[in-house]
């Protein structure tokens, strides 16, 4: 992903799927800045800043991340056991963005999780990763070890007095593990069935302790917010919500893939400018805007703004932001 502008495409700028950066290299390229700043702030200040940056969950539901964190009881991590969990299940057909983040720059996720843990005062973090992501697992595990050796994980992180450590958990399979309460149940070693709410995970999650579950892409945004501030972050976007978004398409496009663009980019730009348009001889008939669990939109919406509210108004959802295309030659039914 070289050649990307860190100012415009912060999430992918440091992604290197051949050899991801180690902690020192990451440092050199501007990594850890967000963490260093955050550890000097109070947890409440961080939550406010994240709320103000209008980061919405990238896992599909689009809930405000800062607001989600604010529901967590405020005791310090020394006084109360709390967990922070990254949801990397990514089994939604047509969705393949988190994979790129963990394979290409696992430290960005780790940094985001440390900041978030500090913000909600969690001592333990778990990355729940899709079982088939063998390379991602290897990279993450290695990154966790490196980060620990470099003093970013473990006790008294960077001399702040804050203790936090991370564990990577490969999923045993099943799509439902991506649903946050089923994910928690699975982590507990039980059948991955969803749980009743209340209690919401922020109050009673993993082993009954307050738990925040966020998507991997969500966490990967956090370091940049903390490093560059709310204004900058809001400026990345092309709509009222903040930041960039990993968009993508699959199906009969010329160059299916993942692209980082301002949140609120239109599908027309994603498909025609980034993915090269439809393959020759195929026309777009309809599409699922954000993964298999979003409703079809017809070709008349081919230029739809891919922010949170617009697809919803059209009868669908932004979902994961990775569209599945249906062309005019494939049976919509079969």
């Amino acid at each position, binding site marked *: 992903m070289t050649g990307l502008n860190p100012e415009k495409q912060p999430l992918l700028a440091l992604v290197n799927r051949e050899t991801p950066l180690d902690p020192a290299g990451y440092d050199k390229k501007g990594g850890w800045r967000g963490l260093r700043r955050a550890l000097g702030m109070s947890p409440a200040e961080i939550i406010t800043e994240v709320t103000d940056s209008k980061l919405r969950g990238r896992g599909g539901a689009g809930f405000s991340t800062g607001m989600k964190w604010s529901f967590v009881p405020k005791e310090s991590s020394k006084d109360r056991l709390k967990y922070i969990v990254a949801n990397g299940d990514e089994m939604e057909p047509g969705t393949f963005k988190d994979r790129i983040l963990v394979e290409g720059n696992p430290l960005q996720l780790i940094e985001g999780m440390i900041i978030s843990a500090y913000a909600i005062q969690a001592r333990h973090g778990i990355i729940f990763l899709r079982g088939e992501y063998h390379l991602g697992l290897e990279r993450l595990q290695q990154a966790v070890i490196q980060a620990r050796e470099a003093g970013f994980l473990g006790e008294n992180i960077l001399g702040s007095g804050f203790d936090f450590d991370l564990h990577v958990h490969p999923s045993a399979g099943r799509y439902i593990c991506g649903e946050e309460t089923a994910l928690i149940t699975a982590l507990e070693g039980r059948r991955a069935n969803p749980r009743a709410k209340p209690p919401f995970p922020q109050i009673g999650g993993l082993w009954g302790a307050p738990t925040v579950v966020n998507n991997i892409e969500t966490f990967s945004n956090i370091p940049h917010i903390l490093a560059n501030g709310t204004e900058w972050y809001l400026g990345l976007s092309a709509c009222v919500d903040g930041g960039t978004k990993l968009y993508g398409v699959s199906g009969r496009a010329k160059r299916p893939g993942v692209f980082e663009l301002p949140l609120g980019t239109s599908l027309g730009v994603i498909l025609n400018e980034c993915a090269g348009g439809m393959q020759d001889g195929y026309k777009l008939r309809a599409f699922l805007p954000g993964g298999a669990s979003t409703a079809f939109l017809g070709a008349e919406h081919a230029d739809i703004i891919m922010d949170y509210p617009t697809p919803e108004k059209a009868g669908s959802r932004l979902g994961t932001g990775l569209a599945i295309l249906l062309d005019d030659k494939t049976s919509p039914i*079969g």
Partner: protein
Amino acid sequence: MIRNLEHFFAQESCGWCTPCRDGLPWVERLLIAIEEGRGTPEDIERLHDAARLIGPMGRTFCAHAPGAIAPLASGLKMFAEDFQRLVSKPTPGTAESGAAGRRLRRYGPMAKIVIDGREVEARTDVNLLQACLEAGKDLPYFCWHPELGSVGACRQCAVKQYANADDTRGRIVMACMTPVTEGAIFSVDDPEAKEFRGEVVEWLMTNHPHDCPVCEEGGECHLQDMTVMTGHRERRYRFDKRTHNNQELGPFVKHEMNRCISCYRCVRFYRDYAGGEDLGVFASHNNVYFGRHESGTLESPFSGNLIEVCPTGVFTDKPFSKMYSRKWDMRGAPSVCSNCATGCNTIINERAGKVRRTLNRYNDEVNRYFLCDRGRFGHGWVNAPTRLRSAGYVINGDMTPVPAQAALDHFGKIANAGKLVGIGSPRASLESNYALRKLVGEENFSTGMAEPQHSLVKLAVSLMSTSAARIATMQEMETSDGALILGEDVAATSPRMSLALRQIKRTAFNKAADQARVPHWMDASVRTLGQDTVSPLFLVSPTVTDLDGFAQDPIRTMPEDAARLGFAIAHRIDDSAPDVAGLTESEAASASRIADALLAAEKPLLVSGLQYASAALLQATANIASALAAKGKAPLLSFVLPEANSMGLALMGGLSLDEIASRAAGSTLIVLENDLSRRLDKAAFDTVTGGAANLVVLDHSVTPTAIRSQITFPSAAYSETDGTLVSAEGRAQRFFQVVYPDAPLQAGWRWIADLAQAAGFDHVKPWSKLDDLIAEIAATLPVFARIPEAAPSSDYTLEGIPLRSQTHRVSGRTAIRANISVRDIPPPASPDTPLHSTMEGSYGTDMPGTLVPFYQVPGWNSEQSLNRFQQEIGGKMRGGDCGVRLVEGIANAAGSYAMDVPSAFAPRAGQFMLLPEARVFGTDEMSMMSQPIADRAAPAVVRVGGAVAKGAQVRLSLNGELCTVDAVSDPSLPEGVATCPPHMVSRSWSTPGWVSLEITAPAERIGTESAV
């Protein structure tokens, strides 16, 4: 796309709450039905209901269902027209394009036709009935059969055909007689066509006895299925039914003519397809009668297929009848026939610990739709009193049962006396043979075959694997256009293969049909047009064979001369092959004629075998193959081998029985599932069995060898365990357990592991399941590297669930033994098979062909439901095919030629050359322990060339035994030649040789005893 997504969501439901757990699979199945053309407008309504009822937040426990329903609900709206088109009812002539076809891999030319307003892709080389069935339509039929083609007799498959898009009236045509042409427009659901079909079935049923509750076809009857499908429910015919007398047709087939609906399938199979002559159609009008001219045993060795070919209960399975059970109350398992080396695929049915019957299991490349009678009725030995059901010691010539542990302990004590020597068996599984070989070591292991068979099988396998020819499947044989059978009575040594070879003549008719522009499936027309066609099959054999009528003037000559002819043919094709000196004029002419025909053929086929124990015959055949290859042809080659696993043992390797004999002296000798008395003459048998310090026998039946042993262990038969056999074609195939015996029977390899444990040999560790052993064989012996692919492993699941082996209608297992106890007992299980022993588990048309335990789909309860399991009718199974080829010829192999041309046969004064007379019934070991086969086997006779008085007998010495047998004169044999069925007169004799025959006239017979 929607089906694809809903499949994902249905599979991924966590199973907690109902709407998504049970609603989504229903949604998926509706989508499949609609996509495959079996959907209705009501199905679309059901989908709308599902979307409405499952989708909204809160209906389900979590957000999985709303997500799952999103593409469906939106798709139903957005693609409403596509849905409508797929389920649309006949609006004649209004073809609409873009509809999805059935998910089939298509081969060959296709056309777009319209069936009930839906455009489907159909093959142009089939008839419309086939096209409809392949498009997922339920269209009833009787006289058409996938392998027998169409004759248009029953008129049941009537449909409406429209001339063009503007034609609104159309006309009724018979689908089975209508070709598929581009743009043709049909309706199956047209009311007039429907009414006509309803009437046809009502007519067919006027004389049917409606005796389903007592009929053995009931529950798996094509007539029942088709009647229900047609919708005929009420009987309006108020008059008397005609009745018929039934015939006694021998030990295999029962006859109940009153059930007949006159579809003519039986005679078409029996006469036209299989070449039988003693079953015909008699009388006329609604009194037509299908039977023999008088009661008597059906002569064709394929008579059992009538049971499956007949759409109702006219011909039923007689041995099965004696232990009858409904289809739904039996367990089924896929199996492989072990009664010869051909490797036909079967289904065996079990109930209450007994094998009830054997059915055909479709394998498109092997036996396809038919079996021979030895295969179908030869299983009875597994239930026979001759079975060993416990470990035993032989005391005073009697088998005395002992607990297995005691016998094992005893073995542990004697095992170290002398070295261990093992004799394997070509009738035992690869796995058991391998285990024995491992236990005793390669240098102390025998293949269990005696000379000359041992060397000949090895030679055949090496010729096949170094030849430039392809090893022929039976399917390929059927379509050869120039074939030579050299010195083998295939009709007797591989009956099913001979049935394939019989089709060569029919295939030749197709040329005449092509000229007359008649499609190949118009069977009666093709046979009419082809009448004058000369068969491209050449047959060279010392004796008359059942294939003679299918060949171009069969050549009758002694094995040596047959081999010489073969060498001469090879030389005439490629003159670098050795020539034969001293041919007679007629031999030279035959050689040229056959050479020319083979060279002119597109698919030349060469067949020979081991019947006459002649290496020269095999080499001559291989020479012809090499010669054809040298001329740029792609010949097909096949050698008939003697036993179910002869090929496997030859590939595994080992010493011959003759070589092992000296090693066995003073040893602890373990004999695996092998009766040495059939292979060694009496003296050698006594030396081997008596010379061993200890003789341990593992077998499933009591044999003369077992009676000589100190310890016997009872092996599980092929129906009681799982294992792999390699057929003569080099195809490794797996058979699966169907009986869970209550006796302590286990697979040979498990006993061998137990023996090793008992003796403390730690080079053989017990295998916990068959798959482990198979993996070890594959890793140890490179020739077997691919055997794991022969069938899925025991952890195979379909949609995540292991397979079941009973139908869902099975009478409850607690109910069925409620007279004993109402408590459920845990069903039996085995770590070796992927089939669950009960009705619990998954089943479907996409299951692998190797694992089909029975054929059934909704609405189709008979074996005719096979249609739904095939990608296209008569083609591959949807779930993949059966077995894996271990031996292939080498394309472009440098043709090397065998140079040893034998000298011509020369009679000897005062002596007879005695040739083995192969028989379908009588000469095979295990099938003769089945009562129906024993009943069917004719008594042994010696056929003598030259005059013999009626009622005479011969006295002769065979392998050192003095035998007396009835003699008959056989004018087709030359003077000085006689034949004798192997193993039937002398137990061990099977190889040609010179004998002195003492012929006693009937007058001198008085008071002498028959040895038979």
